[in-house]
Each structure stands twice: as C-alpha cells, then as structure tokens.
C-alpha cells in the first residue's frame, strides 16, 4: 500500500520533486528548476481576505518564524469619511489569531495582508554592505544567513517593515517567498493555507500564468509606489489609505 502511494506520487512531477527532496534533503534538491525561467511575485486580492490569520500561522510553522516576528502579517483598516488620511489600523500579534469582531458603523473595514514585496529595485539589497542579501535570478529577495553580519542596515532600508533581525540567529530574516517550495513546483505556505484564494503566487515570466489576464482587467496597485522599488506584491482594489 505504501509503495503504491509512492508510485502514484511520482505521476505528479511537481509533487514528486518535492517528495524526492524531502527524502534526500540535499542542496541539489531542485534539479528541474531553472532560475532564469521565472520571475516571481504575489497577487493579493483584498476583497477576498477575511482576516482569519491562516497565512500568518502557516508561514510561522513552515519557516520557523520566531514569536513576535513576522514574515507576513495581516492588518485591518478602519476608514471613516472623516479620517481618510488617518485610518485606524490594527494588527494584533500580526493577525496570527484573527481579529476581534468589528461592529457595523459608518466607516468601511478591510484586511491587508502584508509581506515582502520582492522588489526588483529593492532598497534593502542596495544597502547590504557585503552582498549577504540579494535579488536572485528569479526575482526573489533572499538572505544568505551564513554571510550576513547582522548590521540591520537592510531592516532600516525596507520601506514596508518586512525585515527583522532573527533573535537567536542574529542575522537578517525575511520572507523567502517559500523559495524551498516554489523551486519544487509547490506554491507558498501562505497561498496553500489561504482559504479564500486571497493570495496567489504569480510567475510573471510564465505566459500561461493567470496574472497576465488579471492585470489587464483589474485595478491593481503596489504599496508605496512613490518609493519606486519595483514591488512585485500586487494588490487588487487597494484602498488609497493603505500605507
């Protein structure tokens, strides 16, 4: 029984690669992955987010994110007609355990999942003094934790607050866009765990990716466009009050 299950798994190439890598655990675990064939990003569909916190929990268990630090988190905005420029925002424990119930009033509520924007012109990699953080050939911003000094300059340079210094490793840590998953044909942990499909991993170099059609038909925005970071976390129906 066990063997047939394994053989069935081999039928699915993507899962099979993941399977083999799980067994082998070697650095050469993604032989079919061509870095130059991808340009990764993320689509975040705000009207679909229900603020359940599944993505935050999934990220923490997939990536061993220490308590009190966040590779992804969810914010809840409350905007009334009198505080457009000064919205009321909460993110209790990064939204990990969801949000307190909100009561209907004159304002509007919505959730904004946040994560590393995997910027093409990333200010964080620009300032790294030694080349310990970088934009990979596939557009993912990564940290080489064996080379990082822990100077925290990159943390200061990120306009979105997506980086932190790992409390025990004492090096910069951040969202890797689940690099260990996407190189095996899987989606990210947050996308896998999102019950409403509010998050979608996108590959801009893949002509068949639905993102291309989506971008043509929707009002999509990135966070803090004035920072000109080439952010690749695309937000559908992003409210102007979000920062």
């Amino acid at each position, binding site marked *: 029984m066990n063997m047939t299950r394994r053989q069935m*798994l081999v039928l699915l190439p993507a899962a099979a690669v993941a399977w083999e*890598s799980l067994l082998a655990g070697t650095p050469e675990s993604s032989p079919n992955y061509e870095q130059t064939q991808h340009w990764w990003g993320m689509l975040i569909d705000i009207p679909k987010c229900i603020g359940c916190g599944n993505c935050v929990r999934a990220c923490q268990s997939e990536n061993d994110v220490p308590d009190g630090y966040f590779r992804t988190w969810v914010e809840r905005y409350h905007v009334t007609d009198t505080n457009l420029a000064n919205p009321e925002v909460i993110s209790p424990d990064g939204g990990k355990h969801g949000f307190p119930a909100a009561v209907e009033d004159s304002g509007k509520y919505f959730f904004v999942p946040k994560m590393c924007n995997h910027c093409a012109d990333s200010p964080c990699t620009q300032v790294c003094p030694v080349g310990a953080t970088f934009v990979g050939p596939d557009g993912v911003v990564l940290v080489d934790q064996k080379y990082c000094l822990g100077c925290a300059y990159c943390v200061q340079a990120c306009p979105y607050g997506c980086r932190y210094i790992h409390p025990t490793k004492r090096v910069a840590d951040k969202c890797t866009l689940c690099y260990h998953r996407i190189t095996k044909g899987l989606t990210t942990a947050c996308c896998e765990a999102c019950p409403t499909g509010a998050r979608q991993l996108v590959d801009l170099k893949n002509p068949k990716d639905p993102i291309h059609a989506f971008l043509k038909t929707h009002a999509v925005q990135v966070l803090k466009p004035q920072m000109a970071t080439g952010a690749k976390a695309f937000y559908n129906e992003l409210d102007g009050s979000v920062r």
Partner: protein
Amino acid sequence: MSNFRDTGHLFRFAGIFVAAILIFLAIRGWLVPHTFGQYGHYRGAALNEIAAKPVHFAGHQSCETCHADIAEKKSSGKHASVHCEACHGPLAAHADDPSIQPAKIDTAVLCAQCHETSAAKPKGFPEVETASHSNGVSCETCHQPHSPALEAGGAQ
C-alpha cells in the same frame, strides 16, 4: 644620493603600506567564497541552500493522490477552493509517512476562525454568531466540512 638618504625613512613607511596591501590581497583571494559572484554580488551557493530547506505543508496535490474520494466530494461543494491544509494544518510529515496521524480538529474553534460574524469581513461571506447560531451543537452535526451547504446532504 643624499636626497635618497634623507627620504629613506619615508620609503620604509611606504614599504609597510605596500606590504600590508599585498598581504591583504593575498588573504582576500583565499577567503572569498568560491561561488561568490556566480550570479551577482552574492554567494551563488546560498540559492541552493535556501531551496533545500524542508517542506512542512505537503500541498493539496500530494493530499489528493491518496485522498481522491475527499477531493471529489470537496470539488462540488462550497469549500472547493479551500486547500486541505488550510484546515488540517501542515501535513508533509503525514504525506511522507502515512502512519503518522494528523491531529484531530476542534471544529468549534476552526470553523469560527473564518465564519465568526464581523463587520470587517467582505460582504457576502457566510458569517454566523457562533454563540447563538447552534446553541452549543457542534458545527459538523449539520455541516459536512468537505461540503458544508445544508442541501448537500449534511443536515440530519
């Protein structure tokens, strides 16, 4: 000749500099990691090291290879687009070795995580006030989690 004698000490000082720079260059060539600069100004080997980290969420494709019956049932219901591990949690260990059993789910907590009433949720999303909705009767008494609508045969 006398010019050199009177500047000799300056050459000694400069000599120390040149020696230090040469030693530095030699050490540098030896210490820089081999894959540094392979793709850009970073250690190329880091890419594979990060890619080699273990997976915790197996992915719904893995689940469906064994649990085709559940996948079939789910595909026609309201939870069709909800992936398995959204509710069941990370189960790569179980996919790896099916004898490892996943933890039992407490539906009273799990269902409320998404479906508890809040004005903050998008309009049209099914919400209930769990305290008054079922008088403490557990959710799966009426709603089958894999196909939760009442008319789908969940009601008893």
